[in-house]
């Protein structure tokens, strides 16, 4: 009896809690606070934060592996996050299903009306690769313990695209997955703070006041055929990007084709919501003290900020360069939307544009590079998976 009482005491968190776990529970609660109070990408950061709290409760066994006896009979069941992480994140299923849902929510109309803006989406990916160099420097100089695969996974934070970052990190650097996902979603939430100073520094007021030509109307047929064209190009040129872009285009095709509305509706609602809850809990399960409380995490957070900044700058500068060669003027602010972070970055471009000229509505023009940035970072992800894996 006293024995049992002692057992019960030994089972409590008070007895078992290690400092690292305590700190990580606080980190989880901080994410929950940021999600609820500051509106930091709450759909992901709230489940991630709670996932971090739960996985760090000592003795709760949320990441416990199931135990089987020799005949395959279950002796002790695994924890919830064990099943979620190994079933949906390690396998890559959840990020791909989220990407399908995002595809079903994306309207490529503004991009199809002005395909040139794809160049802005390409330029902004420079943030990804500049960050890779940064991480590689830190690794080569011995300051931090980053391999090439780690560097690639860290770089993808600059893609400003959550599911892409999680997909790449789960394949190239599973240990860094937690920090990378937290950095990606946090900076996406911080886009309205990170981007405007850079955008203002690199442009004159005249440039920011440029009014762009009205977008041409886009037909339903173009919208239907476009995802098929992308899929074929991916199949031809970069199969390693096919899981991401194939599912994205599948979702978009369901949206645009008009004959499977009930599937498109489910992909955008019930399915993506269910997967988002699980993805968050699964990502949170990687926020253990061993994986998170080290110098590398600081490096990742720092490099992620650099990645967003360089991506923003590269997009703006590319727009300015295009203005030299093109007849139709491009407001360089929409270049910043090329980092993706849909639709936040486009709204930032619109807002900064309105500051310079109250009649200048850039929102739709910025949506072009914005969705182009999603394609751009998925392509970058494909190159990385092929280059680092091959």
């Amino acid at each position, binding site marked *: 009896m006293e024995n049992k009482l002692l057992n019960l005491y030994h089972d409590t968190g008070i007895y078992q809690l290690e400092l690292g776990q305590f700190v990580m529970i606080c980190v989880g609660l901080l994410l929950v606070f940021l999600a609820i109070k500051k509106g930091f990408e709450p759909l992901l950061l709230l489940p991630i934060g709670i996932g971090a709290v739960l996985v760090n409760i000592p003795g709760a066994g949320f990441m416990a592996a199931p135990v089987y006896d020799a005949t395959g009979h279950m002796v002790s069941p695994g924890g919830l996050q064990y099943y979620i992480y190994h079933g949906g994140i390690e396998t890559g299923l959840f990020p791909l299903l989220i990407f399908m849902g995002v595809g079903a929510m994306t309207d490529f109309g503004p991009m199809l009306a002005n395909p040139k803006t794809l*160049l802005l989406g390409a330029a902004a*990916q420079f943030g990804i690769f500049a960050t890779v160099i940064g991480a590689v420097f830190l690794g080569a100089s011995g300051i931090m313990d980053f391999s*090439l695969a780690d*560097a690639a996974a860290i770089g993808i934070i600059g893609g400003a695209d959550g599911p892409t970052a999680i997909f790449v990190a789960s394949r190239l650097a599973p240990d860094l997955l937690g920090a990378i996902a937290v950095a990606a979603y946090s900076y996406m939430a911080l886009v309205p703070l990170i981007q405007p100073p850079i955008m203002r520094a690199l442009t004159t007021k005249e440039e920011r006041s440029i009014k762009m030509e009205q977008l041409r109307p886009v037909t*339903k047929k*173009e919208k239907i055929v476009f995802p098929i064209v992308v899929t074929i190009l991916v199949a031809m040129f970069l199969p390693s990007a096919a899981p991401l872009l194939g599912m994205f285009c599948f979702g978009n095709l369901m949206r645009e084709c008009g*004959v499977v509305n009930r599937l498109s509706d489910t992909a955008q609602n019930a399915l993506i919501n269910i997967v988002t809850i699980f993805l968050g809990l699964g990502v949170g399960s990687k926020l253990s003290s061993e994986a998170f409380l080290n110098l590398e995490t600081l490096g990742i957070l720092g490099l992620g900020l650099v990645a967003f900044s360089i991506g923003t700058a590269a997009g703006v500068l590319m727009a300015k360069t295009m203005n030299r060669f093109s007849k139709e003027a491009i407001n360089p602010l929409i270049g910043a939307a090329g980092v993706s972070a849909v639709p936040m970055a486009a709204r930032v471009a619109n807002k900064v544009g309105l500051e310079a000229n109250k009649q200048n509505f850039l929102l739709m023009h910025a949506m072009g590079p914005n969705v182009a940035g999603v394609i*751009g970072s998925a*392509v970058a992800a494909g190159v990385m998976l092929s280059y*680092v894996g091959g």
Partner: protein
Amino acid sequence: MNGLLEDGFGLMVLGMGFVFLFLIILIFATKYMSRLLNYLFPEQPVVAPNSSKGLNSSGVDAQLTAVITAAVHQHQKSKKS
């Protein structure tokens, strides 16, 4: 300067190269696609996105609904007569 750094630069050059290459190809493909489609099927353009109305009514559902509605009507008519 070691192999890691070299690999990193290689990844950057290849990566940015490939991103630009792919998106430039996509620009041309998109433009060609649009021109071809608008040439083959000149139509009244729409820019309004798929309205979310009727999102719940699928093919199957709609058919079932039609069937059921017709049935109910028939019965109601028959009750009156």
